[in-house]
């Protein structure tokens, strides 16, 4: 997941993935990237969903919490 996010946000200042329950399917991701600056939260989260489309579609990710920020 970290690799998928890092390739989707090559400019990211922060990419963090936390397995919230230890079960390998409930995740919290944090992405801080200049490319997110100026986008609405809906658009920012859409970018994250797009980056993680494969693990979302195949059920690897059962639950995803997202925290995004533009340039720090």
């Amino acid at each position, binding site marked *: 997941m970290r690799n998928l996010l890092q390739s989707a946000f090559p400019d990211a200042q922060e990419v963090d993935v936390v397995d919230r329950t230890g079960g390998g399917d409930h995740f919290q991701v944090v992405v801080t990237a200049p490319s997110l600056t100026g986008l609405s*939260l*809906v658009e920012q*989260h*859409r970018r994250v*969903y797009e980056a993680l489309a494969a693990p979302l579609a195949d059920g690897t990710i059962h639950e*995803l919490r997202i925290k995004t920020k533009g340039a720090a």
Partner: protein
Amino acid sequence: MSYTEKIKEVIDGSDVAIFMKGTPQFVMCGNSDRALQALHRAGATVTAVDVLPDPQIRQDLTAISGWPTIPQVFVKGELVGGADIVEELEASGELGETLRAKLGEGFAGAGDDRTVALA
């Protein structure tokens, strides 16, 4: 009427719509609960749709909104986001501002939540 038509009718015809797991009376998922509670704290009355009775509801909803997860919150036909965004907007005060801007000053405490059964 297909699910797609019914879903669009709810999205476009409701001040605040939430597509959730369960109903406001019996919430079946922690994230649906987080979004609903934040909306209630902001004073919103919601039109709720339970996506659980038929998996097709969720598929058709995602095809319309382009949003892969549940819950999904719409205000006056526009996607506001899921539980994380609704909570973040509440924390920054923007949730109340958005509701006031789109629904008018008198939006708070306007009646009871409504549940629409699609299946």
